[in-house]
């Protein structure tokens, strides 16, 4: 039956009608557009928070492993990593929204950024730490032998080299984070996923809005992957 012209005409007509019902009618596309903006805001905010936390924790852990200093901070960092990586992201999001910020009136966007940022920070920390530890021991020694202190060796010699090895992993973490924000509907944020879901509840059509949502995520992820690969190649060139 797929081969008849009649069937194709019918299918095309239905698609057009459904498309207009789901996205054009009552300007429902705005739900996706605004949701997308919210998703991007959460992701960018959380990535920045995550990088800051991750870098701090990684430096504490690496300094402790390399020099034996910062014992107490290292202890705190390890508890942080265990708790954050040992509980589901969604539970953390709910706890931060309904418990920690329960009695305070804060912007939900900020709550989401903090929750996803803290979560991402734990994973980013281990990525950065692995990168710092992967730099050859001889590089620390070369820095030290020239009279550079630990901080100078770190910032001028170790971190720039670690950056190359951690960049792909950081890119992946960004991609994971982008997708992970799709649970922010649970604290009543209207992100991209929620936008699609609202359309579904209004039109009783699940196929079109949800596939549209999936397609938008996929395009973003592919774009990010492409950027990361390009950056990797550019950094490789100076070797």
């Amino acid at each position, binding site marked *: 039956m797929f081969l008849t012209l009649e069937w194709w005409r019918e299918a095309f007509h239905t698609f057009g009608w459904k498309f207009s019902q789901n996205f054009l009618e009552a300007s429902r596309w705005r739900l996706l557009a605004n949701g997308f903006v919210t998703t991007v805001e959460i992701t960018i905010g959380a990535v920045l928070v995550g990088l800051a936390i991750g870098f701090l924790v990684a430096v504490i852990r690496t300094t402790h492993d390399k020099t034996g200093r910062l014992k107490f901070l290292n202890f705190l960092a390890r508890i942080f990593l265990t708790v954050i990586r040992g509980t589901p992201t969604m539970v953390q999001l709910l706890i931060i929204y309904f418990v920690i910020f329960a009695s305070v009136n804060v912007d939900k966007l900020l709550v989401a950024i903090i929750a996803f940022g803290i979560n991402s920070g734990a994973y980013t920390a281990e990525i950065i730490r692995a990168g710092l530890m992967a730099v050859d021991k*001889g590089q620390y*020694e*070369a820095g030290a*032998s*020239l*009279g*550079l202190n630990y901080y100078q060796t770190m910032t*001028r*010699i170790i971190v720039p080299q670690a950056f*190359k090895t951690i960049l792909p992993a950081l890119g992946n973490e960004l991609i994971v984070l982008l997708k992970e924000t799709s649970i922010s509907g649970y604290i009543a944020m209207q992100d991209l996923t929620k936008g699609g879901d609202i359309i579904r509840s209004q039109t009783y059509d699940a196929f079109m809005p949800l596939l549209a949502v999936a397609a938008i995520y996929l395009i973003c992820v592919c774009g990010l992957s492409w950027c990361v690969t390009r950056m990797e190649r550019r950094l490789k060139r100076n070797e």
Partner: protein
Amino acid sequence: MSNDAKPILRAVELTKQYPTVLALDHVSYEIFPGQVVCVVGPSGSGKSTFIRCLNLMDEPTGGQVWFKDQQINAPGVDINRVRQHIGMVFQHFNLFPHLTVRKNITLAPTLLKLKTQEEADATADKLLERVGLREKADAFPGQLAGGQKQRIAIVRALAMDPQVLLFDEPTSALDPEMVGEVLQVMKGLAKAGMTMAVVTHEMGFAREVANHVLFMDHGRLVEENPPQEFFGHPQSPRLKEFLSKVL
């Protein structure tokens, strides 16, 4: 060199105890300005540990290290300041792969505010000229051969105007045909009066360039003599055995 000059580096009963191995067993030695001291011995004899303890790259567990009038393994000493005066050349070069040759050489002097970038660049060019690598200034370490890397590493250490240079098996990681060019540079330094302590397997270099040759075994300083004496009339049975194997 006169013997009443003060030593630049002095090890007093230097000991390094690893959990299961005694790597350095009460080694005492003094290095005077202008001397070239070569340390030889079988692998695992503690010779690398000895040289690495002299700038606290390895922390000794006992004894003292003195740089001129200062005990440097004492509490409260700013070891980074001391290391500015003690250069080190490593077996695996340890050049900074993300920086050009020129940046490798000028990073520490400029970062430590010992020189302006212009002064450091001028020094780098002069030193590169001296080791025959002037045209490599803008190359990255990954583009260089082993012997070239080690010559750059020597230049990097020299750019700090060190008062003594430590070499930890500088030619051991090199292909045989590149050993000569690095030893040539080191000979030049020795001739110019640089104080050097060299852990090496190059007996020819030790015989020709060193003022003193040390033989270490099982973490102990077994024998120490000028090269003619050291190679011509070895005293201890361990050294005789060692020399019969390597010569």
